[in-house]
């Protein structure tokens, strides 16, 4: 039976104190086509219909963070990523009849009901964020330094950078309204598989021009 001395305890305490900042300021992410996996501490928040008008996920990381998978890179500083998937108004979507158009007035988008949904949550060890198949908008912001290569960004940055990428799918009508200051209140809609004039939504004109 080995005796644990005071010096050993002090060494252990020092190691734990040293490890805490390392744990708090490092992390990594694996991005696949179906989900994003975050290891390490992250801040996150999200919104979805019916309270939101799009499926929005926002994840923020602080410190040194790496990523791999569909996008590779390493970031020093603060990095934030927002992914938006639209409400699907396509004819084949069984839920499309239940959805009604809501006009985009600032009073609705910045109303009291939306404010509480902007609260951040903390994930200390692991976070999985589902990646909807029809996600078509990504915004990335970096304060610090970033080296990245992939579908979302291929860049070396020192300073501040905000990038957005909108990739509407084929044979569709896609619409997005996004404000960087209020990302969770983004609105996004899609009408897919429109191959002829007959398949255009009946109320499309009203929805585009309320």
């Amino acid at each position, binding site marked *: 039976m080995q005796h644990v001395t005071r010096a050993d305890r002090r060494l252990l305490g020092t190691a734990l104190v040293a490890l805490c900042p390392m744990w708090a300021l490092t992390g990594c992410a694996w991005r696949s086509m179906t989900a994003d996996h975050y290891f390490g501490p992250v801040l996150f928040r999200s919104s979805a219909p019916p309270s939101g008008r799009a499926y929005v996920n926002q994840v923020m990381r602080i410190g040194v963070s790496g990523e791999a998978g569909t996008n590779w890179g390493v970031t020093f500083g603060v990095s934030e990523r927002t992914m938006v998937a639209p409400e699907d108004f396509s004819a084949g979507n069984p839920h499309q009849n239940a959805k009604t158009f809501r006009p985009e007035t600032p009073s609705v988008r910045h109303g009291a009901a939306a404010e509480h949904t902007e609260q951040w949550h903390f994930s200390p060890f692991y976070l999985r964020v589902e990646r909807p198949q029809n996600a078509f908008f990504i915004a990335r912001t970096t304060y610090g330094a970033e080296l990245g290569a*992939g*579908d979302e960004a291929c*860049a070396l940055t020192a300073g501040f950078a905000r990038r957005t990428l909108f990739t509407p799918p084929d*044979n*569709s*009508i896609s619409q997005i309204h996004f404000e960087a200051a209020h990302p969770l209140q983004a609105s996004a809609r899609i009408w897919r598989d*429109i191959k002829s004039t007959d398949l*255009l939504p009946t109320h499309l004109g009203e929805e*585009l021009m309320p």
Partner: protein
Amino acid sequence: MKAYAIATLRIGSVLALALTHSGCANVLGFGTATKFGLDISQRADQTVDVSLGYDRAEIASIPAPKNNNATLDENGKSVSDTYSVLGSFKVTYDNPFTDEPLVLHQLFATGAAARAAARDSRMQAYFGTEAHEIAVNQPAAANSTPPQTIQSTGGTK
């Protein structure tokens, strides 16, 4: 020395793998970028962009058919020009540290949907109104102080 060479080889392999996946997909994409500091970046099928200081960019990448896939007429000329897109976008930039750093409003019809929308009177009315607003508002926007608004509508066939 050998360990150093192996490490270099590993890093090189990772970078090569990363660059293989980097932005070479043949997809329609619209991007914006606001940068402050040093930035070296590249999007698919475009040259490397180096900026120092403040820079801003709006990028549209529309896939074009390869020559061997193009439809040819009786004279052997290509009749399929490029991908059909009908769209309208409005981007408003301001100081990145203010309440309204970036506002985007984008509407795009792609492929067959763009061709169908171009024939539809409601969409014609929508894009006509958008074009009118741009024509009326553009000179004022150009002379205004920040936030700056960039607005455009158009299509390709």
